[in-house]
């Protein structure tokens, strides 16, 4: 593999109405080629109807060090959870 090949993250929508989910990554020269490889690698068994590829370097990720300030404060705020609502049957895929 040539050294300058870029890393891309692949997101697939498995069917209409659902959102794209991250399924993995791959190397390609450019976004167009990444899209084609994503088709060949991740949709061989009819896994998707739509593909997104994103330059991995374009993803801004939270850091392990941020855990304390990012997530811990939520633990003692149960009133933010909609646990007392009953979901109607008709609402799927939520």
């Amino acid at each position, binding site marked *: *593999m040539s050294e300058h*090949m870029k890393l891309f993250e692949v997101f697939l929508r498995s069917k209409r109405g659902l959102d794209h989910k991250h399924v993995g990554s*791959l*190397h*390609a*020269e450019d976004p*167009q*080629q990444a899209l*084609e*490889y994503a*088709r*060949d*690698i991740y949709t*061989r068994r009819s896994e998707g109807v739509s593909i997104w590829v994103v330059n991995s370097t374009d993803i801004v990720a939270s850091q392990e060090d941020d855990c304390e300030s990012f997530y811990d404060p939520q633990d003692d705020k149960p009133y933010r959870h909609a646990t007392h609502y009953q979901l109607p049957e008709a609402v799927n895929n939520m």
Partner: protein
Amino acid sequence: MSKEMIKQYAIRLGDDAVVQGHRLSEWCSNGPFLEEDLALTNVALDFIGRARMFYSYAAEIDGGDFTEDSYAYQRDCREFTNLLIHELPTGDFAFSMARQYLMDEFGLAFMECLESSSDETLSAIAAKAVKESRYHLRRSRDWMLRLGDGTEESHNRLQKAVDDLWGYTAEIFELDELEQGLANEGIAVDTTALKSNWETAVAAVLGEATIDVPQGDWSIRGGRQGMHTEHLGHMLSNLQFMQRAYPGQEW
């Protein structure tokens, strides 16, 4: 139009597909990088699938003990009627991609025509193949541009590949008595009618890839009559080994 002629035609198309598919499958685990390896193997499988459909149809017309496997595994070189270009060894990556591009450009136009064949089964197989072929062409055309307009080495390798392949493209557009007869009935594709469009499309892509169109001062033919290059036998010894060593073996 005799069913026997349609059977022979189906076998020819099956032979093209199985030989093309096998050559592509030789890249499996040898691809330049993982992503391309998988993509190439996908394309190989498309052609093996095509071969199965054409051979099954031939076996159905035959009505005897022959199955799709018999055609692939139990016939010798002279009985294979594939176009010669398919059987040439894999070569380097540029050679494989150049062959794939030249044949994809032809294959898509061919399948689009076969889709309107008056033979329902051939038409149905073509309808499925057209979708695959569009993708194959998109891939191989892309590689032509990358390699031709890439580094000096990739350019030189691609130019050499196109030069070495060019003489094998002539027979693609020639009809013998069998195919002419079937074409007159609207069953087979009249490939002579596809030539000028193919030449125009190929010249445009080669131009964009900064590759010179070869002079076309030599040509080799004979595949449809079972007259092959020395390469097919070696390929078949590999492809057919298991069935030759263990006849009827299943797993």
